[in-house]
């Protein structure tokens, strides 16, 4: 008889991670806007206040800088706060607290005051949300030294990476791909907690490598499956952590295939995707058969619902980018 893994949504997997972390460690507390009685606008914290009490999971006044500032002080005084920013763009009022204090406290005190806290942010689009509800804000955090930036792409990883993030002695920005909150998958809660800072090869490939994270990983996998039907063997690397970046795993794949496309939903200019292209090119130049391609959002504010399909990197755009990776031998230059 085969033991079947339970199927759960990503929201349920994250809820399970919070429960298990709160059970394992009394210093773990969860707070934010509507996370108490309501259980969060995405129901990620469903039942935590009921089961752990108001001291362990509580609603705060509606002020994001206040939420993160409170978490900093609680972390200074022995707690491991996990806070929820309700939506990506609503986290911006907390930007100063995150960049000037969360990120720098360990450094400015020579490690005497560490910040073992997690800032959970439902992020990115694809849900038909109105403005300010669909930003891909990862680059702001990835650019800030001192922050760890994690973006799970599967429900099992959402569980495991959140457990690892809560256990981390350093502050973690935990980016939850909100359009996957209600996608149901088999989730293995017993598998080893994945180490932060290690990418995973989701699909090995011989001909080219797609590099993606968060909500772009399922799109990249679909694209690779479609390419396989057309005779191309395309691999997919899921970064899991944007910071620290796993150069080793990513570069090993690119060196093997010689061709790569980075897929990310945020605007492309000065983005995480730009950084990946730059650093992989620096490290793998002599193995490359073509310049590394990028499929990203346009350099525009996130569009309104009826236009978002034109913005989001989809399978066709990814396959077009793969097609552009100079598969034919270059013709000799024509002398004029």
């Amino acid at each position, binding site marked *: 008889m085969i033991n079947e893994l339970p199927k759960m949504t990503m929201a349920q997997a994250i809820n399970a991670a919070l429960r298990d972390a709160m059970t394992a460690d009394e210093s773990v507390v969860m707070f934010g806007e509507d996370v108490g009685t309501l259980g969060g606008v995405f129901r990620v914290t469903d039942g935590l206040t009921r089961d752990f009490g108001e001291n362990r999971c509580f609603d705060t*006044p509606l002020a994001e*800088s*206040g939420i993160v*500032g409170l978490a900093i002080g609680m972390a200074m005084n022995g707690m491991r706060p996990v806070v929820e920013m309700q939506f990506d763009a609503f986290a911006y009022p907390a930007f100063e607290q995150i960049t000037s204090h969360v990120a720098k406290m*360990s450094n400015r*005190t020579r*490690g005497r*005051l560490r910040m073992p806290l997690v800032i959970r942010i439902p992020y990115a689009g694809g849900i038909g949300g109105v403005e300010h509800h669909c930003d891909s804000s990862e680059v702001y955090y990835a650019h800030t030294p001192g922050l760890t930036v994690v973006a799970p792409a599967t429900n099992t990883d959402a569980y495991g990476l959140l457990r690892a993030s809560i256990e981390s002695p350093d502050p973690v920005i935990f980016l939850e791909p909100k359009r996957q909150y209600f996608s149901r998958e088999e989730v293995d809660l017993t598998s080893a907690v994945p180490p932060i800072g290690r990418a995973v090869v989701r699909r090995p490939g011989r001909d080219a490598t797609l590099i993606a994270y968060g909500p772009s990983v399922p799109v990249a996998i679909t694209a690779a499956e479609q390419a396989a039907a057309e005779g191309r063997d395309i691999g997919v690397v899921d970064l899991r952590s944007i910071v620290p970046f796993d150069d080793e795993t990513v570069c090993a794949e690119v060196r093997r295939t010689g061709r790569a496309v980075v897929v990310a939903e945020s605007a492309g200019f000065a983005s995480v995707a730009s950084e990946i292209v730059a650093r992989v090119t620096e490290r793998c130049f002599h193995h490359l058969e073509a310049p590394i391609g990028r499929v990203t959002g346009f350099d525009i504010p996130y569009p309104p619902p009826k236009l978002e399909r034109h913005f989001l990197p989809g399978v066709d755009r990814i396959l077009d980018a793969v097609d552009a990776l100079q598969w034919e031998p270059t013709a000799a230059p024509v002398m004029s």
Partner: protein
Amino acid sequence: MSADLLARAMTATRVLDEAGRLLRGVETPDGAMLLDGYRRLILARRLNDQAGALVRQGRLAVYPSSRGQEACQIACATVLADRDWLFPTYRDAAAICARGVDPVEVLTLLRGDWHCGYDPVEHRVAPQATPLATQLLHAVGVAHAATLRGEDTVVMALCGDGATSEGDFHEACNFAAVFAAPVVFFVQNNKYAISVPLARQSVAPSLAAKAVGYGMPGIRVDGNDLAALNLVLGEAVARARSGGGPSLIEADTYRIEAHTNADDATRYRTDDEVAEWVARDPLSRLRTYLTGVGVLDESQEQEFAAQAEEMAAQIRAGVGAETSVNPDDLFAHVYTSLTPQLIEQRAALRNELTLEEAS
């Protein structure tokens, strides 16, 4: 909120008048405590003078002086118990020293060796905040964590009049009030945010009156009257410790010196205005009182002056000592363990330095 509470937010509480006489109807303050407070005022004044001199000698990059505000500095630190926390700003070096931190460690930030030179956990003093009002929220967090664990820790959170305009001031007051957090918000209203006068920050009846909107007591106190500060801050600490929640205390005081040595205060205020406040000096007021009631005599004055000189000599020696900075430190504490990227970058810098030494 009762009319009485609002009255306390409007009219500054005083114990001594400007001439150093005990006000009528006021309970006589404890002589021994005030004498020790006076000794600490002398040390704080000497710290301000010495640090200013070290800036002029190029030993410190900058020093925001609390000259004229020493009574606030001493009172807010000495009303706390060892288990309590202090959240200071860049202008609160004297308060940090009064909490028992080595002045040389306090000045490390300004000497440029590292950002925070003292151990915040050992002393229960947060790093000096340079951004405005952000630290007030951290103070609420420390206090709330203590409450959740059933501890009776109190947190003293400092800021200036300018910082009350920041959003984080509002969020901190509101969070503290909603959570009944044991925090004392202590605003040293020294009348200027660099050059901008109080009238440009707020037209509220007083800064303490803002407490009404958060549902907590707001009390105005003469910031140059150590006896009054001890009384008012002591009450607020006791209230917080017994579960009564936060208070907002506004000290009516004045920044006698410019914002820092890099500032020119003559561009925005008159010498006459400064002279008026010099006449209300917190040290001379207390000296007059203590001498008058026979608690302070000439030999004690000499003893305190000698202690101040000894401290100043230690500061000069400590700040003047050649220190070595280690470039590896740049990478050491960004994360608990170095990332592969930081290991690479540290190696690159080490290599650069080796080549530099060889040439």
